[in-house]
């Protein structure tokens, strides 16, 4: 069985399209998209007139004088993982000075983008084909979680065990404490208890793949205790990824997507599994 795993799309629509295409191109039997799924910035497109706008990009304010040009700019923002909102100067000032409003709008844009992705996945993946799973990352707000539970083509796999061709995928978006105060951080002791409960459902570690967030003491203890066949970890933006061995477990980290590059790049791992063994793996780049 061949499983394709990618992570850290950080809101990039282009990387998401690449992910969908890669499933077919690589001939994967299953695919998993892990967090962080959401971007980190909202760009305010200021409406200056009937057909004129100002958009701040790269620290400079760009004047836009046609709807077509605006569509191109906003598509580019989406491809690079940024969100955008069109406002009058007054609306922008009103928003900027109101943190609650910023929070509401930002989270709403994040949901809109994910809904768009899930619709695209339904269209592109169709009814047949390999199973595709999705889980948020520890930096993703929890307001997106219900979006994955609506029976679409991308099935949720967070905080549960899903079966794929005799293998068990165990995924958790929770992480231990970090320096960034992320949305899904937990106390290390609570995280250990949570992961222990979750992983207790594993029937055979030789056929288990753990998708756990980047290193925490709790995750290390769980991996050491269960010794799954594979553990995947996501990496922070720009993280280098890599492979290592912990006991009998192969730990693989795909590089996170470089969404801020001129041409956003999707990184992933292609794992070839056979009879409870990792026959091969490749780091992929698209």
């Amino acid at each position, binding site marked *: 069985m061949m499983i394709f795993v990618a992570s850290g799309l950080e809101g990039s629509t282009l990387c998401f399209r690449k992910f969908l295409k890669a499933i077919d191109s690589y001939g994967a039997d299953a695919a998993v998209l892990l967090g962080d799924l959401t971007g980190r910035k909202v760009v305010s497109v200021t409406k200056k007139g009937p057909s004129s706008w100002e958009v701040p990009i790269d620290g400079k304010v760009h004047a836009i004088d046609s709807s077509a040009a605006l569509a191109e700019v906003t598509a580019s923002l989406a491809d690079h993982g940024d969100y955008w909102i069109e406002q009058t100067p007054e609306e922008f000032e009103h928003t900027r000075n109101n943190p609650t409003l910023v929070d509401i709008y930002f989270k709403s844009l994040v*949901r809109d983008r994910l809904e768009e992705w899930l619709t695209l996945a339904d269209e592109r993946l169709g009814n047949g084909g390999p199973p595709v799973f999705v889980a948020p990352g520890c930096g993703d707000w929890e307001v997106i979680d219900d979006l994955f539970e609506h029976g679409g083509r991308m099935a949720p796999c967070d905080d549960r065990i899903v079966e794929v061709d005799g293998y068990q995928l165990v995924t958790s978006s929770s992480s231990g404490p970090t320096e960034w105060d992320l949305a899904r951080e937990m106390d290390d002791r609570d995280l250990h208890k949570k992961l222990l409960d979750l992983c207790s459902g594993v029937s055979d570690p030789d056929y288990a793949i753990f998708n756990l967030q980047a290193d925490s003491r709790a995750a290390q203890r769980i991996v050491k205790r269960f010794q799954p066949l594979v553990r995947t970890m996501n990496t922070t933006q720009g993280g280098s990824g890599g492979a290592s061995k912990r006991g009998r477990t192969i730990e693989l980290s795909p590089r996170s997507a470089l969404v801020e590059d001129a*041409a956003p790049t999707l990184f992933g791992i292609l794992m070839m599994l056979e009879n409870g063994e990792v026959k091969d793996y490749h780091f992929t780049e698209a």
Partner: protein
Amino acid sequence: MKGISLSSVIQVINLERQSCDIEARADGQSGRLHFRGGLLVDAMADDLAGEDAAYEILAWDHPEFQVNTEDSPRERTIDADLTQMLLETARRQDEEKAGIVREAGGDAGASGTAVDAADAASLDDLAVFEGPETAESPAVPPAPPVLGLAPEPVSGSAPAAKEPADARGSASTAGAAFAGPGPATAPAVKAAPAGAGPTAAPGAGRGGTLNVAGLKRVLQIAQDGLDDALVSADVFSTADGTSYVGFNSQPASCALLNQISERMALSFARGGLPPLGRYYMAELADSRILLVAPCGGVQLSLVVDSTRAQLGLILNVILPDVLAALEEVSPR
């Protein structure tokens, strides 16, 4: 305010248990939704109030709206569950769309074929009526073969060379960006290969063989023929709009042009027109000409400065050579 959906804002308010008002406007109507602790407690829309007003506002198509976070206590007039109301609104809208499409099919007479609701939704504002099916009616062209992406094995885990983050991501310095979740530190990014010169493309995959050298040759022929009249060129994937090779590559344009080509093919098919020939052309401002040639699983886009090359020369001499080379690499 545009670029954000009212339904998402409502759901975030609900999930985050916020107390606020939403003032919404659409097609000369106006209304207000009041939330307390995330619950929708009251609504007004023109002469409606309570649940009826809420359903009215939720049904508006792309309303403009403004959220006010000042707490304005209201008597509770709505007890219905917000999620159920949103689902009910979606159901009503689906029914309405299906009804419109059925009606269009019925008006067209016995030979008309109604497009189903899902199809109509996918066509957005394109024609939703399909003409009578005859032997001459062009069928929707089959999807082009998908060119594969190549798994590129990396030996060990050696990371690519990185440079510190550049100015991108610092929109807040211009005063018009909001901070997001996650690490506050500037992410490292790879040195961006911007600017002129052919860019490398993904390699071959299981779905087919991508002849990168052949695609580069196509661009070379275009460059040789057009010389300094060539502003930019890309050969991009029809499957997802990703540029495979480019000269002054415009990845965002590729993605958008891909959508235009797709819509054009659909429109021609639905409108009973013959399918697109070898290319389409648009006159742009600033003496620019855009040429797009869908061919197999790829599309060639050229932007040409018409002050530096004669149109006759482009269409009758250079373009045929370029298209012949493209068809050799990616047969129709």
